[in-house]
């Protein structure tokens, strides 16, 4: 039974905004998408979560009719991406991974251009542009050329441009990468409002936290394959809400610590001189861990506690790290790099 037949048995399929079945795409030797399936109910936020190079952008570009797939099927609001691209183009907004705005035009002129090319009624464009500029905190800069904008302002304008024709389906490819905290929160609020108004949003992200905040469902993508498709809360529950990482002088000390902790914390694992464990107990985890270690005279050399990240999801799902989380995507990280591990957010 195919995935589609399965969907057709329920009423679900009639309410799917996006349907993807067995989608494949290669670039020469590189298999960017290796048969992915997922579907997105109308009026919901769906997250594609994965490290750099997983295939997120390729999936979004195919759904937005920018790129043709090699195999499989994809439909947006019931329209096939290959057979009816124009029908889809009239119904979607795309904010790609890199801001697609014209640096020589002002913010307002950019929105006007997109409005015209979206086949909007000419008279409807100026009020819509003004509304979006206001909404994205760009009113003051609206009549300045975009080349004078900061990276965050460009990103906001880019998302605003995707919204000009009030598309019922919106694609956001890593929308908050490069945004400061304030802008990021603003965008998150905006996305929630859009969904309340009936918009369907497909967003990609490298942050579990972001997927958790916004998406009702998340497909975790790795090497062009969906390795999990669940509610973010379910993914997180598998990991525990807190992850602690302890570094030791040498591997044998670390192994001693692991054995000591394994009785109370079954999920504990060791990797070289590092010991890591997840728990839902939050700070109590730390108190317990440190008390036990102290009792056995095992002092960790480094200690980090953080919320579960994409890397942790990967580790749990695949047994290996998300190899290529980009520097840019991890720019929120604070604190020292943990030896032998990637830089990550959290306090030491």
């Amino acid at each position, binding site marked *: 039974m195919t995935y589609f037949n399965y969907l057709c048995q329920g009423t679900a399929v009639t309410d799917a*905004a996006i349907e993807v079945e067995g989608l494949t795409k290669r670039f020469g030797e590189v298999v960017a998408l290796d048969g992915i399936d997922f579907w997105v109910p*109308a*009026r919901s936020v769906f997250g594609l979560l994965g490290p750099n190079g997983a295939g997120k952008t390729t999936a979004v*570009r195919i759904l*937005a*009719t*920018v790129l043709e797939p090699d195999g499989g099927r994809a439909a947006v*609001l019931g329209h096939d991406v290959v057979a009816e691209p*124009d029908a889809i*183009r*009239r*119904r*979607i907004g*795309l904010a*790609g991974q*890199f*801001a*697609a*705005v*014209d640096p*020589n*035009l002002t913010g307002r*002129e950019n929105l006007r*251009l*997109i409005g*015209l*090319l*979206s*086949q*909007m*009624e000419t008279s*409807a464009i100026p009020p*819509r542009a003004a509304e979006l500029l206001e909404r994205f905190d760009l009113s003051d800069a609206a009549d300045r*050329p975009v080349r004078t904008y900061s990276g965050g302002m460009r990103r906001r304008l880019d998302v605003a*441009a995707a919204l000009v*024709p*009030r*598309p*019922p*389906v919106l694609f956001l490819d890593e929308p908050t990468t490069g945004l400061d905290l304030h802008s990021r929160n603003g965008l998150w609020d905006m996305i929630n409002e859009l969904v309340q*108004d*009936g*918009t*369907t949003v497909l967003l990609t992200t490298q942050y579990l936290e972001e997927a958790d905040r916004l998406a009702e469902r998340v497909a975790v993508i790795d090497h062009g394959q969906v390795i999990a498709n669940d509610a973010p809360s379910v993914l997180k529950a598998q990991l525990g809400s807190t992850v602690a990482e302890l570094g030791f002088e040498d591997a044998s000390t670390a192994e001693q610590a692991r054995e000591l902790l394994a009785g109370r914390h079954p999920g504990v694992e060791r990797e070289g001189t590092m010991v890591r464990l997840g728990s839902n107990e939050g700070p109590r985890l730390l108190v317990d861990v440190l008390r036990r270690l102290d009792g056995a005279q095992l002092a960790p050399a480094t200690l980090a506690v953080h919320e579960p990240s994409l890397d942790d999801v990967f580790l749990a799902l695949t047994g290996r790290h998300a190899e290529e989380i980009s520097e840019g995507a991890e720019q929120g990280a604070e604190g020292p790099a943990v030896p032998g591990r990637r830089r990550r957010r959290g306090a030491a």
Partner: protein
Amino acid sequence: MSVDVATEIVRERSLPVRAIRDALAVTGRNLIAYRRVPQLVVFSTIQPVIFVVMFRYVFGGAIALPVSFFPYVDFLMPGVFVQTVVFGALATAIGLASDMKSGLMERFRSLPMARSAVLAGRTLADLTRNLFVVLLMLAVGFLVGFRLHTDVLGLIGGILLLLAFGYAMSWIFASVGLLVGDPETAQAAAFPLLAPLVFASSLFVPVQSMPGWLQPWANHQPVSVTAKAIRFLTLGDSPFGHSSDVWESLVWIVGILLVFAPLAVRRYRRAI
């Protein structure tokens, strides 16, 4: 709210209507850049004026025509006009190559716009810019002593021919821009094409003064022919321009468009 198309504001338009509307929208966008980017402003205002003034005063006195029907300045100006329009076509190659590389293309592909609009908008913007440049050069030309020996109709005919020729050149350079794909290479690739057209030509000196082996090319290549045609239209019949040159120039223009417009469109289709 319905999950289907937001019909209140997005219209379903037929392709020909979209093609025209979208081409105009993209033309408008390109013209804004011509007004706002300093290098482009210089390229389409100061540079043509300098050409006119410099050629007038640097070469104007040094060269005498073998048969003097009219002052050298009157011979020279049509050449300077044609040269400026030909060099201006470089902007088409560079602009289009930049368009294809810009992040904006990605968004354009996701919009219900006519696919032709990027190419049409680029060449139309360059045509509009040429109209401005030609009128500017003409005004400066008259200031530095250029005189019309025919009538207003001849002048209008000359301007139209010049614009048509510039438009044809735009398509040659649109193909170059799409072929090489990035603005710097486009600029480098264009020069070897331009040199034999601009320098082995009748733009600044009469072909009669060139070595014999060069004369057939210099007499009949499109840039020379167009300069001679414009001399005929603005100065009247002379050894430097006959009515036949107008026809020859029109044949070149049509021929170039017939070859290079489909070529550029094909390259463009493949690139998007």
